[in-house]
């Protein structure tokens, strides 16, 4: 029998076309984004250290959709339409999250029908106020206030405050996110309304005439530090 190639090709193409039509789901497109705030002021955290969980109770599986806050405290997640619950695991983040007793944590209900912004209002232990960075004579100095927000029985002391600088806008205590740092023990803070720190700016390769700087506060008994917004300082 003579094989007619155009038949074979027609059959193959229609097979390919037909088979592709059904087996793919659309990727999620609805964007849930937001920001950690305290009274409207953003709360900065360390890169890749503060995770959040989104649960979809109607879906069969009980495991959460995980995500991580960006250093500036923002987050975003692409999801399907549906009803979700947003929560943060225990002991994560430099703030308190509402507890419901017997180990249960409060969650935010989200009814996602279109792109949505969600401000996540939390109670931080401390806030860093009015950070000012100046560079002069090879040094970077910072002045700032630290305001104690939680003053009741849950109040915690400051373990230390840090000034970090880095070549890139990722700045934290993590080993590869700073090129210089200086710390001041909490017990050495005389006036929390006027703290100043100064650190020598090391030469970078390639040479840059700017660095990124950030203040961090380590609270005793809390693993994650709270940070000021990252600032670019030119010199």
């Amino acid at each position, binding site marked *: 029998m003579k094989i007619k190639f155009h038949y074979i090709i027609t059959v193959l193409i229609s097979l390919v076309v037909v088979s592709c039509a059904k087996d793919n789901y659309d990727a999620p497109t609805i964007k849930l984004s937001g920001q950690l705030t305290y009274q409207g002021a953003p709360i900065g955290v360390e890169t890749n*250290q503060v*995770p959040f969980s989104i649960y979809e109770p109607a879906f069969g*599986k009980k*495991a959460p959709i995980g995500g991580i806050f960006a250093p500036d405290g923002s987050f975003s997640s692409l999801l399907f339409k549906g009803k979700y619950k947003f929560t943060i*695991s225990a002991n994560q983040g430099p703030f308190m999250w509402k507890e419901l007793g017997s180990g249960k944590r409060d969650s935010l209900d989200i009814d996602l029908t279109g792109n949505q912004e969600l401000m996540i209002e939390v109670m931080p232990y401390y806030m860093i106020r009015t950070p000012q960075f100046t560079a002069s004579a090879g040094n970077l100095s910072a002045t700032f206030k630290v305001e104690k927000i939680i003053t009741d029985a849950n109040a915690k002391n400051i373990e230390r405050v840090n000034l970090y600088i880095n070549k890139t806008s990722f700045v934290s*205590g*993590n*080993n*590869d996110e700073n090129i210089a740092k200086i710390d001041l023990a909490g017990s050495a803070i005389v006036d929390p309304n006027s703290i100043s720190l100064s650190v020598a700016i090391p030469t970078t390769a390639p040479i840059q005439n700017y660095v990124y700087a950030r203040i961090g506060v380590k609270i005793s*008994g809390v693993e994650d530090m709270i940070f000021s917004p990252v600032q670019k300082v030119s010199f």
Partner: protein
Amino acid sequence: MKKIFLITAGAVLLTVGSCKRDDSFLNIPPNSLLTTEKAFSDPALVLSILGDFYNREVDFSSLDNGWASFADFSEAFPSENGAAYLVERTGWGYGEWGLWDYGYIRELNLFLQRAEEATKLTETDKKRFIAEARFLRASHYFEMVKRMGGVPIITEPLTYDYSGDIEKYQKPRAKESEVYDFIISEAEAIKVDLPKNSNEKSRATYAAAVAMECRAALYAASIAKYGATTPTVTLGGDEVGIPASMANAYYTKALTAAQEIINGTAGIYKLYEVLPNAGDNFAGLFLDKTSVNQESIYIEDFKANGGKTHGFTTNNQPFSNSDEGLDAGRLNPSLNLAESFEKLDNTYAPFATTDNLGNPIYYDEQKTIFEGRDGRLAGTLLLPGDYFKSGKLDIWAGYKLADGSTFTSTEAGALRSLPGTPATDLVQVVGKDGPINNLEFRTQSGFYVRKYLDPQVGSGRRGRGSDVAFIRYRYAEVLLNAAEAAFELSDLTTAAGYINQVRNRAGLIVDLLPAEITFDRIVHERRVELAFEGHTLFDMKRWRLAHIVWDGQAETKTDLLTNIGSATHRNTRPWGLWPYKIFNPGNVNNGKWIFEVTLPSKVTGANSFKLGNYYSEIPGDVTSKNPKIVKQPNQ
């Protein structure tokens, strides 16, 4: 007609012949499948089933578990580019070290059920098999509780009854202390059914059960005591965390169990003291599988040319006399570990590379710098100038010229002409074993590993492999467990007595006084005695030191060289010690050796252990199948 008759006759015969044995034909017993009844009728068959369970025991690091399982935690540098992530990363994922294998538990539970029901086994055999399976099950729960905290304790094979109700199969997590209690009570219950025979090492024995009980009790005790320092690493229902009030009871149990082995009730065990040189003796302990070795209690055994071998020697043999060409030199112990071996006067000191003024110290022989130390240094590490399989190691990073500059090559063992000599006068300018940055399969820290390294001819070949055993429990650990438990119970004299036995064997003949036994000493002794035996992570976890020693901050040279014996000594990056040869003709130091503390250039990360790493994450599929499972803290 004749034809028809023949055909009919043939058909009849066929029918009759084929039908006759229909019954027995369809009932031929399969010879590739054994029924439960058959399998449990013969002790040899039962043992082979148990053999499979023994084979599947989980270890943190084992010789057939991949060399990289020994290389983490800055105790070693991985000299293989594919494993460089170990020193490039800045932390561990929460799921790391996780273990949630209930398939194994179910099979053991089924085994136990069937063995109980077996009728054709003798009572003695049956008892021993059941005790062994319970030992393996307890050991697996121990492995899980170390990593996950409290896990559901399942002691019956769960079989679904198709009722649609699955809730009764969803078991919640037990308290962490309950799992440890289960291990301890199982060990107590089964030990009498196990043989007291110190020559039986690869099957469970009385002493193996007691050694497991001792370690489990010690872990539980220290979690109870030191867990108080990390209050957030707990869960409301005690699935993670043990109340501090339970610490003393566990320490007492650990001490009692250890003493059962020490005073000979569990069989004759003693420290391996055979060879006159403390270092060779210590290395020999891991190689000797004869009855002379009464130190090893329970081992994972291997047999060359017998089907069960491992590639530890192939992977880690010195490059310069490798049996397998490029397959060598991966596991390079770090200077962090090397310098923690004490001097013979029981003090800590970094290797003397410079004098008080910061000038380099010149050595005639490479080995001199390592002399006068704990015998376990030479027993655990291969040092520059050591021999392995009669080949001398060639570890040196290059020449140092008169002006202090380095003259070397990026190719191991390369020949170049030295400055000021004729261009035709080629000499070797760098060791065949490195160290050269980024040159894999040679040492990049300046050391090779000696523990478990098999000196047998051919042991480094891939085809043959090595059959050195992996020791899971040994007498020296029991002594250290006893010392730690006694120390925590404030019985310093007893603690000193036990710890000194281990130290004397290692060549540290000046005894520690009871007043010198501190927490730092206990931590240090376990680190140097049990290096590369899979203890580091779990010890650091139970003492709640992990987030302190691996704090994510880069370990500087000053960090490295100071406070060496401190339990909280930062240990986040593996450093190296590189030897150089002096080239300075006419100078008195020409041809001598100097050493430089060097950070291998691949090391860019710093170990960062978060509070969420203390207990490995329970996978999402487990929590979604069983909503009663509570999540780990800090994750």
